[in-house]
């Protein structure tokens, strides 16, 4: 009983700590780790309630739920990471474009030659961003410029 509470209580503490870290820290990777810790805390609670005492076999249902939950968490983590990388690329290319236009306006010299390794993924696949997507709406002050989750 007390071991069960210890384990489950630790889960709840992990949940709260994960929440705190998620809400306070700015960097996305920290947030991602934090939310995984919070999820781990919830899974802890499930594991704890499966415990049936020393003699009885544990309840398999919460175990199975936790397995399912882990797969869901893995999937979500993968998607968050991919979105994050894509966001960084988009920002890099935006910064690149800015830099290029600045250098072009500063001098009429041709832009510095770019090696293939410098090419950004956006440039590699022009089909990804169709002209219809790059509407002038993006350039209005009204366009939401939401804070990126890490800054």
């Amino acid at each position, binding site marked *: *009983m007390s071991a*069960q*509470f210890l384990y*489950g*209580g630790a889960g*709840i*503490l992990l*949940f*709260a700590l994960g*929440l*705190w870290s998620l*809400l*306070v820290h700015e960097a996305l990777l920290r947030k991602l780790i934090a939310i995984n810790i919070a999820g781990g805390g919830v899974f802890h*609670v499930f594991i704890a*309630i*499966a415990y*049936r*005492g020393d003699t*009885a*076999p*544990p*309840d*398999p*249902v919460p*175990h*199975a*739920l936790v*397995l*399912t939950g*882990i*797969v*869901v968490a*893995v*999937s*979500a983590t*993968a*998607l968050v*990471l*991919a*979105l994050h*990388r*894509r966001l960084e*690329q988009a920002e890099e290319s935006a910064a690149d474009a800015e830099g290029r236009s600045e250098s072009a306006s500063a001098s009429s010299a041709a832009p510095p030659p770019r090696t*293939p*390794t410098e*090419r950004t*993924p*956006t440039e*590699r*696949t022009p089909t*990804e961003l169709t002209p219809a997507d790059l509407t002038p709406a993006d350039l209005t002050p009204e366009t939401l410029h939401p804070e990126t989750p890490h800054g």
Partner: protein
Amino acid sequence: MKRDLALLLGILLALLAALLLWALHATLALEPGPRLAELASARLEETGVSNPVTAVLLNYRAYDTLLELAVLLAALLGIWSLGPAPAGYQRSGPALAALVDWIVPLAILAGGYLLWVGGHAPGGAFQAGALLGAAGVILRLSGEPSAGLPGEPAQRWLVVLGAGVFAVVGGGLLASGFGFLTYPPGQAKWLILLIESAATVAIGVTLTAAYVGGRPGSGTAHNGTGQSRTVQR
């Protein structure tokens, strides 16, 4: 301002944690009544497997597991929609390459074992799939741009294999009058094994593809820094 908010959050969360601890304590303090455990083990023999967790995952609550495969697939589809895969890593040196040559088959073998053992002991499709995924990750890390995965068409079929076989078996059972995912007695074991095998492959491929991190496609994996390293092993 920010510090104040963080402090406020800390206090609020501490209160929340205290409340939750109290609730958990109050719940655990009760007499443990009969739960699903007894029922689950009482009917374990009918499920076709002897590992209770596998019984829950693939028989009692197979519907959840099917959807969980769909969640995995959705994440991969989301990753694919964001663009092609980035270039791979530098080709590993000879020592690491030798190690990889040795580890990857072992991981695949261990995956197969875990899949089989899942019927009666801890193990099963997810553990096995995770090992396959790990093998893929190791391949990718060692400089193999495609992480050992086949081309896009085959990869697409492989990632839908798990949920596909699961859903087709369920739908077939529904069509033949048993009800969705209601295995006929006697055939449960083999159907579960079929589903688990398909799921293992699909999970392994999906995890690897998610690690590769972008849409597979002709040439996309070989651009950038990977251009000079297209030599196949």
